[in-house]
């Protein structure tokens, strides 16, 4: 069984005001087949965790490790990480002018498998996955993310998840900006991918809404660059009722405790 393990991860980013610490010691273990929800207020570092695991050059790992079945991921290039089995569904996928979705998908599949997929079964698979996500056939003729609506971008991310079949997927706020219908379609896609390949999922979200459709095994509350509390699905229900207030420094109990 595959394991993605994050240990004592510290990450900083360069800003105009100087170096800023974002992740301050994250520990997290995701086994294949598990769904972990990472929840937390804006600015707590959830997305930084996602991009640091994927290897975005903007984020500097100061210490700690991320291993996939014991192999260090942090020394790999971005594409090596993907070929090792990691996938990041992005919150804001970028437009790539002049590159058609169909060509992009096939290029990515070829890169991951080390050989080009046989054309006819591949086209059939792409068409079926698009149908499952209620995407029009003409979609594959468009340029990657160019002129896509917010919902189309998210469907396109999950389309890739289903077709590229990673061992671990990080979904960075895949639910943000989606209406309920689109959220259901996208969630079904994630559930299908999990049923098909048994992948592990790190589901990053600000809201509990998506957890009605994608059932987490574990919930982690992320505050100020680390995990503040962990639990089962019941923790999400509690957050739904109480919000993040009790975790924030200016809430009553922590404020009184912090007067120096």
């Amino acid at each position, binding site marked *: 069984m595959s394991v993605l393990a994050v240990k004592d991860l510290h990450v900083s980013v360069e800003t105009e005001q100087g170096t800023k610490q974002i992740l301050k010691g994250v520990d997290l273990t995701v086994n294949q087949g598990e769904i972990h929800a990472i929840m937390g207020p804006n600015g707590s570092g959830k997305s930084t965790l996602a991009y640091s695991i*994927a290897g975005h050059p903007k984020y500097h790992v100061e210490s700690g490790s991320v291993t996939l079945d014991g192999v260090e991921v942090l020394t790999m290039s971005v594409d090596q990480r*993907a070929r090792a089995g990691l996938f990041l569904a992005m919150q804001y996928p970028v437009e790539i002018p002049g590159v058609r979705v169909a060509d992009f998908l096939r290029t990515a599949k070829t890169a991951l498998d080390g050989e080009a997929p046989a054309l006819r079964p591949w086209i059939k698979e792409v068409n079926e996955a698009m149908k499952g996500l209620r995407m029009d056939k003409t979609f594959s003729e468009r340029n990657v993310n160019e002129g896509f609506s917010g919902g189309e971008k998210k469907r396109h991310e999950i389309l890739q998840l289903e077709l590229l079949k990673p061992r671990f997927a990080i979904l960075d706020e895949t639910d943000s900006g989606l209406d309920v219908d689109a959220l259901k379609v996208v969630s079904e896609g994630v559930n299908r991918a999990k049923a098909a390949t048994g992948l592990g999922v790190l589901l990053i979200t600000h809201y509990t809404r998506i957890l009605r459709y994608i059932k987490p095994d574990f919930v982690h509350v992320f505050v100020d660059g680390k995990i503040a509390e962990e639990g089962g699905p019941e923790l999400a229900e509690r957050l739904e009722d109480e919000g993040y207030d009790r975790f924030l420094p200016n809430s009553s109990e922590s404020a009184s405790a912090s007067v120096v």
Partner: protein
Amino acid sequence: MSVAPQIPAPQKATLEQHGAKAHSDGGWDASEKGFIPVQTRSERFSSVLHDDFPAVTGQEVDWKLSPVDLLRPLIDDELDGSEYELAAPDAVGAVVEWVPRDDARVGSAGKPEDRASANAWSSTQKVLSITLSGETPVALGVDRTGFGSTPRGAHTVITATKHTSAHVVIRSTGAAHVVENLEIVVEDGADLTLVSLQEWDDDAIHLASHFAQVGRDAKLTHIIVSLSGKVVRVNPSVHLSGEGSSAELYGLYFADAGQHLEQRVYLHHEAANTKGRVNYKGALQGAGARTVWVGDVLIGRQASGTDSYEQNRNLVLTEGTRADSIPNLEIETGDILGAGHASATGRFDDEQLFYLQARGITEAEARRLVVIGFLSEIVQKIGDAALEAYLHEKIEWELSASASQGGAA
């Protein structure tokens, strides 16, 4: 310890940060000593006689970005103006013939605006005339192969007669040391696509002035593709002289080490309700790769209802390259639909590379995809599937050639 939320102090923006400083090509700052008001583009001097133009110093506005020393023979020397070798397979509706320089069609689209163009005009003995006509769409390919390396002058007149629809590709290969004028007359209601494809030998020098007149309700799609040559300078001047006429002017260029690829585009909205789109895209790779794009758009006093937009984008692939990009927009009437311009020159977008690499695609392959995607916006305008596929292959080849160059360096 409680931490008060930090509200970042608003950054004081300087003009420098926004790029809102005096244009580097100068002459725009009225407080400058010796300020001369910018001349309206349409008032630029023109003549068919070489000696009417003063000697070129290299400081002139239209020469200062060009390697004038390499161009001296074409600007001033005697030129061979005889027929040259070409292949033009018969095409229904197209007549390709050599005509004397006093033919009535010569001079119908414009006159030289610089000394090299005038030198070609007065040196040319035989003019290549291409006349397109008929009810069914015409498709013509002309292969120019035989310019050779002695300095030459050349002149071509392309006439799309009334209501003719035509697609013409002029492909130039081999050795060349040539300065030429190319006239394009798109008569009323005609629809002409002209692709000028420059695939010269590495040491070729090519100066071209294209002059186009677009008649009433007529349309010109003009596409310049420059992929090789030591110096290639193609300057199209397009006049939307008929009411309701339109022009789409596209350019694609890929400059390798030591190549100078230049295009000075002039689009003149003369008549009412005309529409213009200018879009040039270039890539630069290798030490000394140099490109110049100047886009002049003039919306004349009579050109009410004009709809115009021009843009230039350059993708810089390595260190040691230089791209000049200068859009100019002159508007003489306020009664227009819209007019705009844009220019951007930049390196790879890191976010695009990250996105592709995050899907397992190697960095080299990701770069290849981004460059081909960037240039394919222009390739897709060509309207000839075989030629589009060919150009995609050529661009792939350019990229792999440059990549191996970079690897050796």
